[in-house]
């Protein structure tokens, strides 16, 4: 179904009777060309690009719960391509370009809102690091601007310039960064993939892999055996759980990341703001809620909920930088499970088992990567070769010492 303002108008006149489901609810077929495990953002995007770009349509996406129930439905909706390292930045910039054409691409308004992402710095050495990063961004074709205190005062006069414990000295700004209505991304990709014939099978949980002679031939699920010669795991958050069923140990720990939203407020924030001296980042949704977050809770967890210290830590960060939000109220807090990798960077790769592919390790940066992750994974599945922007996301990179560590924290996943 093609969506447009005209369609809404006509439907409105005729009692909104003509709307159709965005996707079918098919039962699994016995065999597919490709099975994608995980009906979250990345899985659905992979299916979308496989069916729309690489012309592979006999594809199933199997999802343990409801479509979009993973981290695509529980993040802070930020998109940006402000990375430092050459292994990362081209990939995220590729993602950004896909975001920019997304709505036209899948005829669904996910409300890509490019109102800028601002990383505030508080010291000279932080500035030096941001200058290096901003230059790396520009050299990779992205946009970046260094703002000084004066610029910031104009753009964000509500920041605590006078009384801050850590003085606000400027920011690295990416004007093209912003936020997207997260659920709609899953729905849009699902709609687009479904239209090409991809089967999205909800409430279908993988219980095991069929592996013979080092080759993966299909999956066992609660809806029966489904066969395929290409099985693509795409279940960030549950990666270790799922891959352990194939006997694969991953350089990943699962951690809970909390996010928060305030009651709806009339517009106050110009874009995404990230505090450089505490754990806090914030944007404002189209509904008016301040959407904010901070650090992961810091211990291995598969519970989609967090604990108090982080809530307080994040709000302390918020009040330290913008004390005008003190009387806004936190409405809801929730947690998502992150695949925290050993260097903070993801994996899109084959595995030692032929026919079994892996996409995961997104840490808390998976949302912004959704389009590129889907595209590059589809590329790998369709062509057998990594996409040029994702060549370094190798599952065994640590064995030879390739480390993509943006934060310089080493093999301590809870610090990334």
């Amino acid at each position, binding site marked *: 179904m093609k969506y447009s303002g005209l369609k809404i108008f006509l439907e409105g006149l005729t009692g909104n009777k003509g709307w159709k489901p965005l996707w079918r609810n098919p039962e699994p077929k016995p065999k597919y060309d490709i099975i994608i495990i995980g009906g979250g953002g990345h899985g659905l995007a992979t299916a979308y690009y496989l069916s729309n770009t690489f012309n592979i349509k006999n594809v199933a996406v199997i999802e343990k719960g409801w479509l979009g129930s993973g981290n695509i439905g529980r993040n802070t909706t930020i998109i940006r391509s402000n990375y430092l390292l050459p292994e990362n930045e081209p990939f995220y910039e590729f993602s950004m370009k896909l975001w920019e054409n997304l709505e036209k691409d899948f005829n669904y308004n996910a409300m890509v809102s490019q109102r800028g992402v601002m990383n505030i710095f508080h010291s000279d050495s932080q500035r030096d690091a941001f200058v290096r990063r901003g230059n790396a961004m520009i050299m990779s074709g992205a946009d970046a601007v260094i703002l000084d205190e004066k610029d910031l005062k104009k753009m964000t006069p509500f920041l605590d310039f006078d009384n801050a414990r850590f003085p606000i000295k400027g920011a690295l700004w990416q004007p093209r960064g912003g936020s997207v209505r997260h659920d709609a991304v899953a729905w849009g990709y699902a709609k687009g993939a479904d239209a090409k014939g991809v089967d999205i099978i909800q409430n279908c949980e993988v219980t095991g892999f069929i592996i013979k002679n080092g080759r993966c031939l299909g999956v066992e699920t609660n809806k029966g055996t489904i066969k395929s010669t290409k099985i693509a795991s795409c279940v960030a958050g*549950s990666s*270790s*759980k799922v891959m*352990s069923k194939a006997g694969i*140990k*991953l*350089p*990943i*720990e*699962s951690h809970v990341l909390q996010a928060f939203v305030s009651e709806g407020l009339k517009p106050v924030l110009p874009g995404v703001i990230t505090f450089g001296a505490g754990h806090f980042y914030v944007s404002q949704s189209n509904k008016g809620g301040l959407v904010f977050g901070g650090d992961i809770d*810091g*211990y*291995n*967890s*598969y*519970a989609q909920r967090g604990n108090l*210290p982080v809530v307080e830590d994040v709000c302390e960060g918020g009040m330290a930088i913008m004390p005008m939000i003190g009387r806004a109220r936190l409405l809801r807090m929730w947690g998502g499970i992150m695949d925290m990798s*050993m260097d903070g960077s993801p994996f899109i790769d084959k595995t030692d088992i032929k026919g079994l592919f892996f996409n995961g390790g997104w840490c808390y940066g998976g949302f912004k990567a959704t389009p590129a992750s889907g595209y590059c994974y589809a590329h790998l599945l369709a062509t057998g070769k990594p996409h040029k922007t994702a060549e370094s996301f190798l599952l065994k990179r*640590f*064995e030879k010492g390739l480390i993509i560590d943006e934060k310089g924290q080493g*093999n*301590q*996943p*809870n610090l990334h």
Partner: protein
Amino acid sequence: MKKAKATNPICIRELRIMIIKHPLLGPRDSSEFVYKGDASLLDRPKWNGQKSEKKFYEYGYLRKNPAGSHRELWYHEQGDRSWLVVTRNTISHEIEKVELARDIARKKKAKAK
């Protein structure tokens, strides 16, 4: 947690109030602690042993990450500075056991000899 314990209500109470029940100091708020990760970090390979490169790679990068009972290292930084091995369920967050890491490390060394 084992079922057998659940029948004794007193026992449940003791378990539940535990924040992290330090073997020497009793229950303490986890905010006094710092988390490190999988207790296999105690099993540092021999530097000059066979296949030490591979072993160190696995030691450094491939850790257990179960959904369920997990043995993990916590450090009582704002307390007596001891490293603990906490056995905790990663789904319910319930803590089953807390031991001094040093005791475990010693036993391992003794065994290795």
